[in-house]
């Protein structure tokens, strides 16, 4: 797959994810509203019904999202998604810094000795991609990122 085709594939996947999450959110809000009405119908005061529906269903919402993410949306085009890991730098006290210098990244690559198939870096400068009417948050990544996703 060419780099451009792969980029399009990733972008399409992200757009699909955005749209699906928006749909899911609207659908779950409808569910909560219907459940509230049924509770009111069974004699519960509205305020209490709203609270109960939100509590009962609200804590399920993140669980539903994560299950759906894992089951339905997961096919981002990585060959072996279970082998992807994040490598981070730690300071002398062993605390993750979340930042790695370009020099360190180069050292990791040259001294990798086959531990990792490939190592790439990304920079978290956030910008927005436009695709028709849907803006999409994006991160810039280092030049060899696509090699990591093959």
């Amino acid at each position, binding site marked *: 797959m060419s780099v451009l085709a792969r980029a399009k594939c990733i972008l399409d996947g992200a757009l699909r994810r955005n749209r699906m999450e928006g749909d899911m959110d609207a*659908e779950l809000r*409808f569910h909560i509203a219907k459940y509230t009405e049924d509770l009111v119908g069974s004699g519960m005061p509205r305020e209490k019904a709203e609270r109960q529906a939100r509590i009962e269903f609200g804590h*399920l919402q993140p669980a539903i999202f994560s*299950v759906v993410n894992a089951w*339905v949306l997961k096919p981002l085009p990585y060959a072996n998604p279970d082998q992807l890991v994040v490598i981070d730098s730690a300071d002398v006290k062993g605390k993750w810094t979340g930042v790695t210098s370009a020099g360190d990244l180069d050292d990791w690559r040259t001294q990798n000795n086959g531990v990792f198939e490939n190592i790439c870096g990304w920079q978290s400068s956030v910008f927005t991609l436009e695709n028709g009417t849907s803006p999409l948050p994006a991160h810039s990544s280092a030049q060899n990122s696509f090699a990591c996703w093959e």
Partner: protein
Amino acid sequence: MSKQQDLLQGTLEMLILKSISLEPMHGYGILIRIQQLSQERLQIQQGSLYPALYRLEYRGLIKAEWGESENNRKAKYYKLTAEGRRQLKLETENWNRLSAGVVGVLNAEPEKS
């Protein structure tokens, strides 16, 4: 929704297919319909319903469309695809065969000598 009944894996999806084979329905409607049809014996966990729906949709067995609910709210309605109808038929046959077999074993009497 406090009582919950564990269902055999795959059973929930079969029940969902059956419910919406009767008429297109939104998620909440499916939940209530299954409870009613099972005479309240089955209580579907709210947290399992939607992942199951999205899985079925992803597999092309059901199709979703936004429409208006009975009280003019925007709601997502699910209906069976042709593939979903075939799958429901297949699963129903398998289930009937399996349950007939289990009933046969459970109703066995000691042989009279």
